[in-house]
């Protein structure tokens, strides 16, 4: 889905990325290659629909697609086990029990205080899915041989697009087809102010979702860039004595990044909840 949405931008980035990878230094070639992967990931198994010679539909399987599938499979398996254990009342393993406090935290501290129990129960599965998908995708990026799926701007854009679709579609479903757009502008305003305020309100929906994208993408990418920079210092200085402080700094940033992984999943879901609540149940 990420490749489907951003195929055009990825192909233009590929031309630049190819030049940069060739022009970078021979020692830093591996690092540059890994950084370019954040913007354009090259396909491993090419599945595309190119009728007249150029790409119309690019559904290739890349490394990031594989990471997203692993995250989705992990969520499916672990939460099926958790739900099955709930039914049997006590026959769960110790490790699957670990997920239950997270679910209760999302429900009781994030969704229900903002949206209320009745309305929140309706939207709870959507926010739980968002939270755990972002969390697992971020944490999979911490494992050495794998890359973070949320480190690519197309994946983050797709996640923010689900929030955008939820805001617009569920806003129109809950409030009525035109009442949603009417309620964007606060009531009791002078009539001449409405043509000025209405475009600002419409654009602000898109800007908020774009900010969600950039925040998640830049947090994940910046963490990886800092770690790669510290390791790259060893190559630049070409000596072994730089290795000891460099590796310890990189280790400290690694621990900070695990905290940032949890925090970014929390922030994305919390802001999603606030935006959907503002769209579905506007204050008077």
């Amino acid at each position: 889905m990420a490749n489907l949405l951003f195929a055009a931008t990825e192909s233009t980035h590929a031309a630049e990325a190819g030049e940069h990878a060739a022009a970078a230094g021979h020692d830093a070639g591996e690092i540059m290659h890994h950084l370019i992967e954040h913007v354009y990931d090259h396909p491993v198994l090419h599945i595309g629909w190119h009728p007249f010679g150029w790409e119309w539909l690019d559904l290739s399987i890349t490394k990031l697609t594989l990471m997203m599938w692993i995250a989705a499979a992990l969520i499916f398996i672990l939460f099926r086990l958790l739900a099955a254990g709930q039914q049997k009342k006590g026959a769960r393993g110790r490790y699957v029990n670990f997920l239950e406090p997270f679910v209760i935290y999302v429900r009781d501290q994030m969704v229900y205080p903002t949206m209320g129990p009745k309305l929140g129960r309706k939207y709870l599965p959507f926010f739980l899915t968002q939270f755990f998908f972002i969390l697992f995708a971020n944490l999979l990026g911490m494992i050495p041989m794998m890359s973070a799926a949320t480190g690519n701007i197309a994946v983050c854009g797709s996640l923010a697009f689900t929030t955008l679709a939820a805001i617009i579609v569920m806003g129109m479903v809950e409030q009525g087809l035109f009442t949603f757009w009417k309620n964007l502008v606060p009531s009791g305003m002078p009539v001449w102010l409405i043509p000025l305020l209405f475009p600002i309100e419409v654009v602000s929906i898109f800007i908020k979702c774009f900010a969600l994208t950039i925040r998640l993408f830049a947090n994940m990418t910046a963490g990886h860039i800092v770690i790669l920079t510290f390791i790259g210092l060893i190559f630049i200085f070409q000596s072994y004595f730089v290795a000891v402080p460099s590796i310890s700094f990189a280790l400290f940033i690694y621990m900070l990044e695990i905290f940032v992984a949890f925090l970014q999943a929390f922030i994305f879901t919390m802001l999603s909840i606030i935006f959907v609540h503002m769209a579905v149940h506007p204050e008077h």
Partner: protein
Amino acid sequence: MEGMVAHLAAGLGAAFAVIGAGYGIGTLAASALEGMARQPEASGDIRTAMIIAAALIEGIAFFALVICILLAFK
């Protein structure tokens, strides 16, 4: 020549963005800690609001970071 100016601009832009974000989050943390000291029973709510506000401010700083990365790799 353009490569040099682009790298310089990227460095300066990142520096100013970090100054702004650091000052903002520092002020935020100061008010949050003072609020928690005045009323310890509200410290859970204050902590949640502080984390949300800090992430929003940091999101703005990351806008500048993305532009600086685009400039540095020009």
